[in-house]
């Protein structure tokens, strides 16, 4: 496979991203740069000044919906990218409807309850679609505690699996972006190493 073939494969692929915060916005930017053809983005939130510490947004975008702001930024990277956005707080009944056309889904929520809901719903309703979840991104340092666990045939978990965000362990850009990059890298591994996709 050469560069041109890789480009042609990735152009035909669709990746769903559930949550456009620290993990989701950065993962979306990486996948866009890598040449993914289409992204399905879901988030209900608005860009806040505090998000600029680690999320792929800019000061001028404070107050915009994250899905709209991210669309703007991703199109700056690749004007040919196809983007479908869902500006809503995802519930179990939305998951299959929004992500059924995706080759892979990236779980990028902040809240652990939402992570559980997505993992369980995907297992029940879209079991054949690989899901790449993020779990444990807080704080700084300890590079080698961050891993990718293949929990199941179609479930991969990236993160340290331990550290919850708190006042003492805020989500800081480097660790958040390491995990986002691992998720994006796992997406590419699945898409490029498995000809059936």
């Amino acid at each position, binding site marked *: 496979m050469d560069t041109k073939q890789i480009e042609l494969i990735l152009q035909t692929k669709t990746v769903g991203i559930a949550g456009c915060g620290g993990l989701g916005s950065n993962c979306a930017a990486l996948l866009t740069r890598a040449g993914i053809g289409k992204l399905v983005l879901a988030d209900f939130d608005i860009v806040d000044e505090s998000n600029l510490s680690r999320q792929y947004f800019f000061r001028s975008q404070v107050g915009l919906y994250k899905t709209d702001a991210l669309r703007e930024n991703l199109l700056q990277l690749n004007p040919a990218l196809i983007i479908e956005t869902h500006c809503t707080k995802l519930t179990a009944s939305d998951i299959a409807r929004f992500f059924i056309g995706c080759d892979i889904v990236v779980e990028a929520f902040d809240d*652990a309850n939402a992570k559980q809901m997505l993992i369980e719903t995907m297992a029940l309703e879209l079991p054949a679609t690989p899901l790449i979840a993020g779990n444990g991104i807080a704080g700084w340092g300890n590079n080698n505690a961050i891993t990718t666990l293949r929990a199941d045939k179609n479930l991969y978990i990236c993160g340290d699996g331990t550290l919850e965000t708190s006042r003492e362990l805020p989500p800081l850009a480097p660790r958040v972006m390491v995990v986002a990059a691992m998720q994006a890298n796992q997406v590419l591994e699945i898409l490029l190493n498995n000809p059936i996709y």
Partner: protein
Amino acid sequence: MNIILNNRPESFDEEALTFDELIKQKNFTFKLLVTKLNGELVRKEHRNTTEIRDGDNVTVLHLISGG
């Protein structure tokens, strides 16, 4: 019984354990778990009745906030 728990082999004296018993015995104290038996999701309300037996492949993931 011998099982695979989170990709690692583990042995237990019991011939079978429910998910709730396994979680207690392993001291998994986290609130939010996703449990699977041989790749099939086991919902929270079924953890007290679903039995794990010799040779099973078990996944117990605990989810933490941050993202």
